[in-house]
């Protein structure tokens, strides 16, 4: 059975939407395309200075303000919703516009230890060192390469037709909902690669080097949110406890939705490992582009997403300060148009709907997949 299956996979033709388009672009065109994007990158790098430094410092100040206000408002029981809102905003800013972006090294040029990728730690149960490995290195280098980019479905979900359907995936919508509610825990456990431990590809002992950091971080986060701050409010302990948990939950839901809209709406493509061997810079950019989607919205909305509403620009230039993404998005879009590359963008509602539909559709065996398997098996019958 196993042998037959392998044969099927090798004879089966690999078709992804990206290939069709890629065949239209010659190697020279791809190089020119890469050159134009490199030029944007160089220009922005040379412009970095006062504005970027002032912006991130303003955001940090606002985040600290929301955090202190949130913690303090728990002393006034009628202001409980306000306290939760304030703390939620604080955690969202901390994780997205500050944490995610600082850990990408977007502000390393400032030389400020408080905004340095090697030193920043975020208000999240995932230790920054493990996040930087799985996100900055694995996800951003092998973006949307099946079998390499573990962010495709996070090892839990079926987010791409190329992931073979199994009855387990009938639970796709349920798993996605659970992942959304506990997103920070999902991110923290990401590096352990539970799915590979369960399938026996990896042993529990191999994850040992991660345990101490993970336990320490979880302990610190739990200590302040679920013990110390609630205890400081005395008789209001339960209210503060629930409030802190709610703020963490709000941040989880928000971050999950923004990130899923940036990576998984319809039209986003995945690649095979073979396609990306010895790839040119132009091809790398091209892969980043087809692997991401943007969300349109107001300036405040962009800030609250850490400017990850510009996931396309982020994937092209992960180490440029994210506040620059909206500024260069028109230019990137124009370049894409000229090369006939789809620039996937839309309002939050539409992108969310598209992601939700995909999660549900892929819970079921793919009709196209079934046809393709049939096509492969048919000659066997004939023989």
């Amino acid at each position, binding site marked *: 059975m196993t042998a037959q299956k392998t044969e099927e996979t090798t004879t089966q033709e690999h078709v992804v939407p990206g290939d069709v388009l890629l065949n239209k672009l010659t190697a020279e065109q791809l190089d020119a395309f890469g050159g134009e994007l490199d030029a944007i990158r160089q220009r922005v790098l040379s412009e970095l200075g006062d504005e970027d430094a002032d912006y991130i410092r303003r955001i940090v*100040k606002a985040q600290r*303000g929301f955090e202190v206000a949130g913690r303090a408002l728990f002393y006034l029981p009628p202001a409980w919703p306000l306290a939760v809102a304030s703390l939620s905003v604080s955690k969202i800013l901390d994780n997205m516009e500050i944490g995610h972006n600082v850990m990408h090294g977007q502000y390393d040029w400032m*030389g400020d230890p*408080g905004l340095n990728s090697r030193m920043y730690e975020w208000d999240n149960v995932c230790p920054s060192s493990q996040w930087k490995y799985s996100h900055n290195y694995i996800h951003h280098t092998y973006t949307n390469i099946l079998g390499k980019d573990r962010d495709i479905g996070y090892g839990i979900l079926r987010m791409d037709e190329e992931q073979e359907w199994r009855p387990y995936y009938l639970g796709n919508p349920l798993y996605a909902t659970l992942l959304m509610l506990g997103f920070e825990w999902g991110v923290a456990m990401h590096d352990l690669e539970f799915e590979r431990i369960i399938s026996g590809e990896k042993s529990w002992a191999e994850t040992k080097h991660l345990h101490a950091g993970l336990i320490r*971080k979880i302990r*610190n986060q739990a*200590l*302040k949110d679920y013990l110390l701050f609630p205890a*400081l409010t005395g008789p209001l302990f339960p209210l503060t406890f629930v409030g802190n948990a709610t703020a963490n939950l709000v941040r989880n839901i928000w971050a999950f939705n923004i990130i899923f809209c940036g990576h998984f709406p319809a039209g986003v493509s995945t690649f095979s490992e073979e396609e990306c061997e010895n790839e040119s810079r132009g091809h790398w950019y091209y892969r980043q582009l087809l692997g991401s989607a943007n969300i349109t919205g107001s300036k405040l909305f962009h800030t609250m997403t850490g400017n990850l509403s510009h996931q396309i620009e982020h994937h092209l230039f992960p180490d440029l300060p994210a506040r620059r993404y909206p500024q260069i998005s028109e230019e990137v879009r124009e370049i894409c148009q000229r090369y006939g590359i789809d620039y996937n963008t839309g309002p939050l509602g539409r992108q969310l709907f598209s992601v939700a539909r995909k999660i549900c559709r892929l819970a079921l065996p793919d009709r196209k997949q079934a046809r393709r398997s049939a096509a492969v098996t048919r000659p066997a019958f004939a023989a």
Partner: protein
Amino acid sequence: MSPTGSAIGSRILRSRALAALTSPHGVDRYLEQVNPMWAAHEVRARVVEVRRETTGSPESGTAPVATITLQPTSTWRGHRAGQYVQVGVDLPGSRRRTTRCFSISSAESGPGERFTLTVRAHDEGQVSKFLVHEAEPGQMLHLSQADGDFTLPGSPATPSPYPLVFITGGSGITPAMSMVRTLLRDGYDAKAHRKVLFLHFARSPEDQIFADELAEIAAADNDIDVHLRYGEQIFSEFELRRLVPDYRNTDTWACGPGAMVELIQAAYAGSDRLRLEFFEPPRISGGEAAEGDVVFGRAGRSAANTGESLLDQAEALGLKPEFGCRMGICFTCTSKKTEGTVRNVITGAESSLPDEDIQICVSAPVGDCVVDL
């Protein structure tokens, strides 16, 4: 706040409880938002005064010098005379925080006490130029704690036929000045029965830092002799021998430009009485001619080894590695050497371990060398 009050305050600020409440950012990340002079662990300072010492002259190629008085945060632990401090400046415009080391020029400071830096605005020194030309009262600087072993022993005033000798050149006078000021402040006088000999080399009288104060010290009734030498000569062994015949057996503190320090080192012929402080690393000199190739692996660049420090060689190839002090102190430039042998240009020590973290500003390759840059 009373001393006990502030002691209790700083104990609370440094408590484990507050660290847990402010996790993962730490107390300082919140305090700085309220008042930059509040800190629990970090050291910062506010510029109190900038005083011009010399104006410098473009003809003789000397740059102006200024003394900057700093009020540190209460986290400053004080300094011993002769020590240096790392100063970080958010440069205007580019906003890149750049850090350099400066010797402290004032007498020993206690915890939280003011101190001064005396800085020459070198052409290529962005931090020193900023401090001399642009620093204004009220501005904040980022500091390290004071560090360095270029200090006086606990009790220099032990009666002895051997004097204490300070040999300095140019702005290398600052750590020695801190030592002399400390001695005088603490009552060092003719009854100490141990002479102090201060031999300083400067370009010209106009370029002399602390000229008035040195004249006062020379004139006063104390055991401190001041000898100022002007001109192109950066050091004279003949002069030193005339003043201190048995100088190799005399406790000496020397600080100056690299070329001067090399001459002094040669004169002392390895005597352990000599303590040195560089304010630029000595140029790599003597020894065998540079051989082999230097490869910067990540950048995919390579060139024939020039014998200069790896940082200089990387920059000559157009690479921009991170660096700080350029003198082996701050570890900003630490990089991985994957293959080959390097010599520490300050200690002369060679090491050939593979995958070794080295400070590229003070490491020169000996033969072929591969660095992960």
